[in-house]
């Protein structure tokens, strides 16, 4: 059974990984699109979070904002995921030791759990507070966690390159 490090090193040595890493244009272009994908995800999620915190579009039902915003969030997420995967493949062996990369993966896991917990708890009763400016405490906590975690992901993501 190979270790995770050995798998990372094997990926690092493939033609595919080397091609992205050593290309003059490919890496920066993928990285640029990755940044814009994150902008799309975080920017649209933030609108929903700000609504849950009562900062924007207070007169609009929460579910209506979620329905309008989330398709764009998922579009951004697929862009972010595919480009992020390409970047990770190209630097797999060096990223293995990179603390910012490890923290980013952990934060991504937490940022995925957050809406999962929210939907299984507070969001089930959304019909009762859909129109409320001040949403239940659980919703405001979920929104604050989402903003903090996504902010942390941007910070950790940028730090990966600084720690190289």
């Amino acid at each position, binding site marked *: 059974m190979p270790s995770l490090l050995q798998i990372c090193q094997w990926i690092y040595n493939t033609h595919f990984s080397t091609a992205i890493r050593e290309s003059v244009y490919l890496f*920066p*272009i993928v*990285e*640029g699109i990755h*940044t*814009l994908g*994150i*902008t*799309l995800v*975080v*920017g*649209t*999620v*933030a*609108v929903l979070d700000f609504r849950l915190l009562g900062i*924007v*579009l207070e007169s*609009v039902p929460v579910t*209506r904002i979620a329905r*309008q*915003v989330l398709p*764009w969030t998922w579009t951004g997420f697929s862009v972010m995921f595919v480009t992020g995967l390409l970047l990770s493949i190209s630097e797999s062996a060096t990223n293995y030791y990179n603390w910012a990369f490890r923290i980013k993966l952990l934060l991504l896991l937490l940022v995925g759990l957050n809406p999962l917990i929210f939907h299984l708890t507070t969001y089930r009763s959304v019909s009762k507070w859909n129109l409320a400016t001040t949403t239940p405490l659980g919703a405001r906590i979920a929104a604050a966690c989402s903003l903090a975690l*996504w*902010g942390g992901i*941007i*910070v950790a993501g*940028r*730090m990966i390159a*600084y720690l190289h």
Partner: protein
Amino acid sequence: MSLLAFCHWVAKTHIGIAMRDSSWDFAVVEIFHLLALAIFGGAVLLVDLRLLDLAFKDLPRRQIAREFLPFTVGGVVAMVVSGYLMFANGPVRYYFNPAFRLKIALFLLATVVHFALQIWTAYRSSEKSVSTLWSRGASVASLLLWFAIGLAGRAIGYV
């Protein structure tokens, strides 16, 4: 004063010296720039999509334009301030960087196009059932310009 002379002057200011000599100032400022970009990007996207009738179709254009104005204006202000600090790290170097020149030119254009559109929609427009051709064109221009500015910004570090 020419632009190049201005760049030489920026390099000699306290901010210019601090940004050049510190090893972590630039990283912190750049991360702040990216955080502001995320908030700004989401707001701009939703305003432009509303004007293209692609999102929030059942809400007045005026309301969307007005409610997101603090986010788009705040985002631009935060990015201009953090952008200036990064620029102060090596003003003369950036002066000769083609990606930086392109980004600034596109930014000036995008700011005029986007904010003319958003402020006009927020305070002057009459609510029609379908967006006018003008506002649709301006929305597409705004989206493409901000997208190009993002890519040009990333290119500054590579050219």
